[in-house]
């Protein structure tokens, strides 16, 4: 039962009808990070998938860019309640990166430069649902927003779309990442408003 606030009208600026519960529309691109922004030189950048046996598959920056690239347009929803619709990105589908990875694990931990981690089930990374993106709105992704490259998993709250991504580790069991340890939801579906533990 919600408490009615007398005299509250609100702005109702969401002319866009389809926002997840509790979200509002923004046209800016706000930033949420836990610490300083890491700066990663492209010649030292790499991305590694580690399976549950410890076997590693890595790509350098040039190797990533030599893979098939996809342009995609998605809506993004931040747990701090802003949503941004129709954002345009370019990057590599995780289907491409996982093509030659053999694994029976169902869970992953995504790792970033700077030490950030977040957990995402493998099925939410595959079948055209996630990318390693290096271009936003036609420009190289700014470090503030996760450049050189970030994960983009638009179906989940945006903290799952790890900035400065440098690897994915396959796990047999689900484990909490950085924000999940700090009280945020293990899965984070914006349409079910899974913001915090217990939602």
């Amino acid at each position, binding site marked *: 039962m919600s408490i009615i*606030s007398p005299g509250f009208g609100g702005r109702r600026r969401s002319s866009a009808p389809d926002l997840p519960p509790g979200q509002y529309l923004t046209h800016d*691109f706000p930033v949420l990070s*836990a*610490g*300083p922004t890491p700066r990663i030189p492209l010649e030292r950048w790499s991305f590694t998938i580690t399976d549950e046996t410890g076997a590693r598959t890595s790509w350098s920056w040039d190797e990533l860019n030599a893979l098939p690239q996809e342009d995609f347009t998605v809506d993004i929803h931040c747990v701090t309640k802003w949503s941004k619709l129709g954002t345009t990105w370019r990057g590599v589908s995780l289907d491409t990166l996982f093509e030659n990875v053999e694994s029976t694990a169902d869970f992953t931990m995504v790792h970033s430069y700077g030490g950030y981690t977040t957990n995402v089930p493998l099925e939410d990374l595959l079948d055209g649902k996630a990318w390693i993106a290096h271009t936003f709105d036609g420009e190289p992704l700014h470090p503030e927003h996760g450049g050189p490259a970030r994960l983009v998993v638009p179906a989940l709250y945006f903290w799952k779309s790890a900035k400065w991504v440098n690897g994915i580790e396959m796990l047999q069991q689900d484990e909490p990442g950085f924000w999940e340890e*700090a009280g945020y939801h293990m899965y984070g579906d914006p349409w079910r408003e899974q913001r915090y533990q217990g939602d």
Partner: protein
Amino acid sequence: MTEARWETPSARTLVLDVPQWPGHLPGQHIDVRLTAPDGYSAQRSYSIASAWRDGGTVELTIQRVADGEVSSYLTDVLEPGQQLELRGPVGGWFVWRGAPAPVLLVAGGSGVVPLMAMIRARGDARGRQPFRLIYSVRAPQDTLYATELARRVRDDPGLDVHLAYTRKTPDDWLEPPGRIGVATLNTHGWPPDFAPDVFVCGPTSFVEATADILVALGHDASRIRTERFGGTA
């Protein structure tokens, strides 16, 4: 809400008596949801300004922002005696848990609110951790908690506060107005060798610039915790 007071002409502290509040750590925030009579609702997160004492109240300091549908209601419409729908406390990262390390707090504007909760918690616990606050404000009249900060500094040798004015300084101020830069953080912060825990809170551009400088000065990036607000593109 049991009472409210103005901290500046555009920032109001709400004192909330929350039944079954479990207590909170300094730096945590709370979600406020407003619902209009026709069912339209909007929610936003606000940092808690107060330190927790058993059986006590919870204080939020709300800065009115242009075009802020929730903040302007909380600053200008909400009256004592009215109820609010809250969720919290939230957050387990941008919190000070009373570790023995020295602490450097760097605030931009209303980013001082969660840092004030840390200062108050340390004061309540008679903590001995040396605290330094570097607080960037536009002008003297925009300073939140000015009187309380001055009193705490006077009474507590373990707390230093340095105010940095970006637009207008007090008349007798020696430095010209300007943004916090390398010199300010180097002079008024802790040396990196002291391995302080650092908390930076403010608008995104402020936090980005400050955190970059601290890393460049040699602070360990993993000891710098940031909280950002505002819609900087």
